[in-house]
């Protein structure tokens, strides 16, 4: 069986500056991959390119999602195909209620899956159930999208959307940052609840702590636009202990190893 | 009234034209300007640009346009604390005291010289025929000048603009085309003064060309105009990466109109306009700004603060104009005024005209009174009310001075402002 997500030698630049300098990665259905790496190494860039942000320039490489050429798809097509990004910095949309926003999104995704759209009542009960999993305030759906949310509320809102839209591949970009320890557990439990043999995750984080709760199958280190290390859980612990400097000294010599089933 | 003045001007023009030895190109331009002026006349309040400013008090007098008989420098004390001007413009006629190194001053005769160094006529950046005051200046300015800055100036250059109306009402018309060379930086201080017992109208036209990456600071320091009239038009064109800052300190003059027109013609240029206005008595101060974003990635900022007291009027009209294609524009504009008397007036017209979509343009205009709570706070600390009031006025209106290029200049400006608010200067030490 081929991987759900296949990234081959992806090179990406923004404003003429090369950020990703040849990233290759396979994520199979059911796997959880963690990506760690110092600030500015290109983690969010990778996530953004996968989600289809247009300001990034793909210089080289190929990305297949479920066999489809991902880079040729519009952002909404990717979302409908089951790719979900939990944003590092979710944007505020004044005046648009979460309920409106999410029902619109959900019905688009359902349409793509050949499911019937949910009417407002069905939507409410569906959404409320998932809100309860994350211990969210009932007025959440009435509030404008991310407007005036605390950092933690925004992150929780992203995971809530993940629960709602049930994607096939979820990319979590530092969903743990800014969360207190209880919130972290809640978020992790939400993610774990979604784990299944059909669903994959890419978890971007700086802290191995999150990986205590969301246990990854593979850990990658992204350094200066390349994956310089790939290992198991223990790699995260090692990074926590030693930082990234030792990788710097090994520098470019470390060849990326691909995560394999 | 206006008709009488226009006729008086026409007669003077005919006389001047006969004795003129100027190159014909220049003379033709003067004549066209005069004809445009005679044809259109001076604007009235029905003219959108002059809606709140009646020129009636200005147009009452029959101004003499010729240079005064005496060529001697009067003993003038310009802005206190500033070094004496290096260049005087007396009724529009230049008197060089001492030019800084790298600065070149040339007069009209050079404009139409034969051969390689043919200079463009002045009037590239202003509407010579459509704008009555530019036309007036073009027709009569005694000595159109170009001032070229080839090197960076270590110190601000001071230019004294004086109109002398000792014997008769006089029209003083400086005309200056300034050019700042690529990559250099300079600061120019224009201090305005009126001299004599008769009314005067200073009608200055300054054109500024900023070459790529040039940086220029300009101060229009209107402190010595007493009850005279002044119309100043400053028009600038900025090439890529150029930076211009203009401060208009309007502390004197019975009727003062300041036009500041900026064209951001090259990418990533930046313009900052600041204004501090103190209007007391029957004064009328009218600020007009127009900032045109013509190229991509430019930024502009305007911050004007005004006090209108007694029977005074402050008008502000500011336009941000973003041309098609001027993407990634950032433009900001604010006029905030305190209206302090039942007889005073503030009119504001902040305007946005936008033809590109990747922009962020904001403007704000507020008119109000002193913050009563702040006043109460100061009084509760034992400061007498009158004093507290002045302190708050000063604090409100000085904000645009903060960005002045040097501490020394800022202190001077603050001192001058404090004097106009009649605060003892020690309060600010």
């Amino acid at each position: 069986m081929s991987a759900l997500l296949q990234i081959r030698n992806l090179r990406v630049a923004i404003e003429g500056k090369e950020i990703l300098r040849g990233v290759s990665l396979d994520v199979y259905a059911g796997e959880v991959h963690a990506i760690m790496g110092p600030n500015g190494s290109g983690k969010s860039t990778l996530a953004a390119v996968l989600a289809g942000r247009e300001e990034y320039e793909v210089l080289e490489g190929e990305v297949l999602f479920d066999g489809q050429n991902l880079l040729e798809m519009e952002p909404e097509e990717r979302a409908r195909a089951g790719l979900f990004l939990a944003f590092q910095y979710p944007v505020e949309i004044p005046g648009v209620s979460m309920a409106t926003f999410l029902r619109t999104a959900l019905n688009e995704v359902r349409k793509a899956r050949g499911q019937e759209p949910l009417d407002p009542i069905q939507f409410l009960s569906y959404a409320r159930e998932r809100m309860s999993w994350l211990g969210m305030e009932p007025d959440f759906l009435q509030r404008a999208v991310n407007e005036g949310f605390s950092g933690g509320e925004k992150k929780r809102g992203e995971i809530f959307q993940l629960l709602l839209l049930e994607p096939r591949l979820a990319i979590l970009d530092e969903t743990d940052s800014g969360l207190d320890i209880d919130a972290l557990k809640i978020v992790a439990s939400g993610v774990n609840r979604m784990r299944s043999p059909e669903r994959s995750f890419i978890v971007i984080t700086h802290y191995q702590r999150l990986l205590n709760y969301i246990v990854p199958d593979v850990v990658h280190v992204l350094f200066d636009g390349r994956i310089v290390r790939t290992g198991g859980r223990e790699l995260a612990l090692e990074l926590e202990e030693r930082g990234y400097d030792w990788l710097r000294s090994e520098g470019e010599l470390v060849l990326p190893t691909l995560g394999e089933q | 009234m206006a008709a009488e003045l226009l006729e008086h001007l026409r007669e003077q023009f005919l006389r001047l034209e006969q004795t003129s030895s100027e190159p014909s190109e220049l003379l033709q331009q003067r004549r066209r300007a005069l004809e445009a002026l005679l044809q259109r006349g001076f604007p009235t309040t029905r003219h959108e640009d002059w809606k709140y400013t009646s020129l009636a008090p200005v147009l009452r007098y029959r101004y003499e346009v010729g240079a005064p008989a005496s060529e001697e420098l009067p003993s003038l004390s310009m802005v206190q604390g500033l070094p004496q001007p290096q260049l005087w413009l007396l009724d529009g006629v230049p008197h060089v005291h001492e030019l800084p190194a790298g600065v070149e001053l040339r007069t009209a005769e050079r404009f139409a010289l034969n051969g390689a160094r043919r200079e463009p006529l002045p009037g590239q950046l202003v509407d010579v025929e459509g704008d009555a005051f530019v036309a007036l200046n073009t027709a009569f300015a005694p000595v159109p000048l170009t001032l070229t800055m080839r090197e960076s100036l270590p110190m601000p250059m001071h230019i004294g603009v004086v109109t002398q109306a000792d014997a008769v009402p006089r029209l003083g018309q400086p005309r200056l085309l300034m050019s700042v060379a690529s990559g250099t930086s300079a600061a120019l201080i224009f201090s305005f003064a009126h001299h004599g017992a008769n009314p005067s109208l200073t009608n200055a036209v300054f054109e500024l060309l900023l070459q790529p990456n040039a940086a220029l600071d300009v101060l229009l320091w209107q402190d010595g105009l007493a009850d005279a009239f002044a119309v100043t038009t400053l028009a600038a064109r900025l090439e890529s990466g150029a930076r211009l800052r203009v401060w208009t300190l309007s502390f004197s003059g019975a009727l003062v109109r300041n036009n500041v027109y900026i064209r951001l013609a090259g990418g990533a240029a930046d313009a900052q306009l600041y204004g501090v206005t103190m209007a007391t008595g029957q004064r009328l101060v009218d600020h007009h700004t127009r900032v045109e974003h013509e190229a991509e990635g430019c930024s502009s900022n305007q911050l004007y603060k005004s006090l209108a007291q007694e029977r005074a009027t402050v008008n502000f009209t500011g336009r941000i104009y973003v041309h098609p294609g001027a993407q990634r524009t950032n433009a900001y504009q604010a006029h905030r005024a305190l209206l302090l008397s039942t007889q005073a007036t503030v009119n504001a017209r902040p305007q946005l005209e936008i033809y590109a979509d990747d922009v962020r343009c904001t403007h704000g205009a507020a008119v109000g009174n002193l913050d009563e709570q702040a006043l109460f706070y100061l009084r509760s600390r034992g400061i007498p009310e009158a004093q507290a009031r002045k302190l708050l006025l000063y604090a409100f209106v000085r904000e645009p001075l903060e960005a002045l290029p040097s501490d020394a200049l800022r202190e001077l400006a603050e001192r001058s402002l404090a004097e106009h608010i009649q605060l003892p200067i020690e309060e600010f030490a």
Partner: protein
Amino acid sequence: MPVQQDEVLQQVTQSEYKYGFVANIEEEIAPVGLNEDIIRFIWERKGEPEWMLEWRLRAYRHWKTMQEPRWAKVVYPPIDYQAISYYAAPKKRHVQSLDEIDPEIRRMFEKLGIPLEEQKLLAGVAVDAVLDSASVATTFKEKLAELGIIFCSMSEAIQKYPELVQKYLGSVVPYTDNFFAALNSAVFSDGSFVYVPPGVRCPMELSTYFRINAARTGQFERTLIIADEGAYVSYLEGCTAPMRDENQLHAAVVELIALDGAEIKYSTVQNWYPGDREGRGGIYNFVTKRGICLGRESKISWTQVETGSAITWKYPSVILKGEGSVGEFYSVAVTNHRQQADTGTKMIHIGRHTRSRIVSKGIAAGHSSNTYRGLVRILRGADYARNYTQCDSLLIGSSCGAHTFPYIEVLNPTAVTEHEAMTSKIGEDMLFYCRQRGISEEDAVALIVNGYCREVLLHLPMEFAVEAQKLLAISLEGSVG
């Protein structure tokens, strides 16, 4: 509300103007052109009293001395006022009850979503239906009459309530006011009249639905609303017209009068035919709307959603005369393709402690031009007057223009005015966020624009808010991608 917003998005599918059909109704149409005979013709057809003829003729003579205003930021070829017909009315319209209405007219209004049977109407909305120059039906009249509320066509009011009409007609917008007001005064043929007696809260929304049907005619309606002491009324106005290649002129006048403690809420959803993508056809909407808060503590509130018309020229205003009176203006103006809008408000503060609030949202797309123009004037005697203005513009695409021209004139030192404006494009980040969740770009734009306008839409009565949201989405179709 969120639930309905969703509905809106699903309905954004067909991009054509839905109301562009022409109904085959027999109408009497005045000869083309304008002169004193035509005014007599209109006057006669309407069987008006003598004083109306005098008033009309005075207005007409004054109009002839006036120039069409050209200061607005709109461009259009000269209008030939002699090429327009100034009166068109259905032949079969003198009916005793709603049941007798010409079935053709009934069908047309039904098609527009305005059934003329009371039982089919939205509960709580009384409708006056105006077709071309004439009012064809007014619903719930009897029910309102029980409360002493007069809601009828202007023609009827002139016949039945001449004292009220004579006292107030032209008292807020005199015929000398402007070119189009003068023209309207000379030739207006119908419109709505409302009088709410002292202390009465009108229990239902009153609404007029304007429909232009005939070709080469102008529509010149006149609306007069008087809220007596302590009265309250909420009034809605909607409008559509067939798609035609020629431009049609609509020059209405609306006058509102609020006495002591009275409140008038006037809402408009303007959806005149905007012309096609290339700017052919469409309505010229040159309208004078003004209210006066005559009484103490009175309030007038204008809410408008402007999506239609080829050209919009309109500045619903409030004269704040009564002490402590309040004026409000909430506006959404959307322009797309070649539409041009120059709209805003005037708040004239005369009385002490008067307050006004302006919230304007302009959205420009395509090759359109969208201008906010507003005046806030605080006169010498308006002690402690307050104004707050927020006017924002959104640009969609790089070929449109969005402009803001406020005038702020303050003559009183105890007054406080604040004006803020911001122009920007729709946030790329917002769009991307929506799209990452599977929402198409066009829907994302509609969603974000609706959110952007929310503050204004909230001031519309419920039924209209839904309608308005749909309209916003439809008006912006084809503006992205």
